[in-house]
């Protein structure tokens, strides 16, 4: 047991260091290597954080969706933990994406916020996962909590593809940088190859950051559980 704990802690430490190094390199690339965008200028550099962070939030909720299905099939506590912690991390990334998007939108669209369908659906998605956490808090029985959360994690996730495809279903001004954008999109641009390099590196680093958060959060959850067990043992002794 002790040896196993040591090994997983060691792996976690390596992951932490790798993530930190990747993030420093990514930030350096964004500010010193990526070329200045011709029309929007420096503010375009937010793009290298905004898109990966938004992608991470989607990834996090997708992980919850998968974990929910696996939980309902296997009933293993671990998958319930993965589902709930991934929602917490996903919400952090959602806030980052909304804030960074707002900072970019002020100069690019001349407004902090617009009721564009994609922005609106993204916000609704965030509210779904806030509701997910509230549902968890409202139910005392751990098994029931896990089951209900898993069901809601599945039902709620249906909104995520809607968010993604809303740009094609509704007329929108949100630019599509990867793939074909709609003709009315404002603030889109074509990436040059150094831009593409920086973007994909940043995407990779921030995805690793998500897994780093997830691993640390899961460890925290395990430790909290251990503390609870020790407390119970102490009280019963």
């Amino acid at each position, binding site marked *: 047991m002790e040896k196993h704990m040591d090994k997983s802690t060691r792996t976690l430490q390596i992951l932490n260091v790798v993530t930190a190094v990747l993030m420093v390199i990514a930030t350096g690339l964004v500010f010193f290597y990526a070329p200045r965008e011709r029309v929007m200028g420096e503010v375009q550099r937010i793009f290298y954080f905004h898109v990966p962070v938004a992608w991470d939030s989607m990834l996090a909720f997708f992980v919850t969706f998968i974990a929910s299905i696996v939980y309902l099939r296997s009933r293993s506590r671990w998958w319930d933990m993965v589902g709930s912690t991934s929602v917490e991390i996903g919400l952090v990334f959602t806030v980052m994406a909304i804030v960074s998007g707002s900072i970019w939108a002020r100069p690019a669209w001349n407004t902090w916020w617009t009721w564009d369908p994609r922005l609106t659906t993204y916000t609704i*998605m965030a509210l779904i996962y806030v509701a997910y956490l509230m549902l968890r808090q409202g*139910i005392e029985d751990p098994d*029931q909590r896990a089951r209900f959360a898993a*069901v809601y994690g599945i039902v709620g996730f249906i909104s995520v593809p809607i968010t993604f495809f809303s740009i094609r279903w509704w007329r929108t001004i949100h630019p599509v940088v990867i793939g074909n954008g709609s003709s009315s999109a404002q603030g889109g641009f074509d990436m040059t190859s150094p831009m593409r390099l920086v973007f994909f590196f940043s995407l990779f680093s921030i995805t690793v950051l998500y897994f780093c958060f997830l691993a640390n959060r899961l460890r925290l959850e395990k430790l909290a559980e251990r503390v609870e067990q020790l407390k119970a043992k102490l009280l019963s002794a």
Partner: protein
Amino acid sequence: MSVVSRQPEPDIKELPQSPPSPSGYWLLFTDYCRAVGSVLWKDFTAELRSKELLSAMLVFSLLVVLIFNFALELDKAARENVAAGVLWVTAIFAGTLGLNRSFAMEKDRGSLDGLLLAPVDRSAIYFGKLLGNLLFMLLVQAVILPVFSILFNLPMLKPLLLVVVLLGTIGYAGVGTLLASMAVHSRTRDVMLPILLFPVAVPVLVAAVRASGAILISAPWEDIGPWLNLLIVYDVIFIAVAFMAFDYVVEE
């Protein structure tokens, strides 16, 4: 039944099972329908005797329409623009009342356990409850629509609009029944349902409002058709997911 008996119970899966013949499938199907029907009938008779839910939903809907009348300055142009929105907001608010009650009642009287003990497929309970909620919501809308067309001076009783009302209500009640069955177990259950339901039901609401709005101004079919399709797709997806997930919600 004695406590000491340790006789292993016969495992149902072990029994030889031959696939039912076509008439056997038909029998299973009619049995299933009968189970759905009895849950619906139970809710309906209970409501007929008390009439508390329907009257509450009706009065509430009328109040919401009235409040909108004061909250928005409704001249003729504004009326045409917001009528569909007001109609659907009224419908979903009133619907939340009904959905909340449908499971809260069962839980408070302890009849939910009895219902779950019934030797029928759990999804039959879901569909029975869904049909009950749907029926109450449609009854309320049957009253609200004529009142609405008088108060807003708009022709509300178009056949196509009735189709949209039906499809939108099915989608809303479909996902609402599932979420209400979960919300009823939470500590803050009356508050929990709208928080869980509204963000998930937004797609249904958007499609229903757009379709109704287009119908009210007699827009061409190209403006209505896609939203109708969207509604049908949502109805199918939400009810299929609820059908699969309901078992996990009610298991003890």
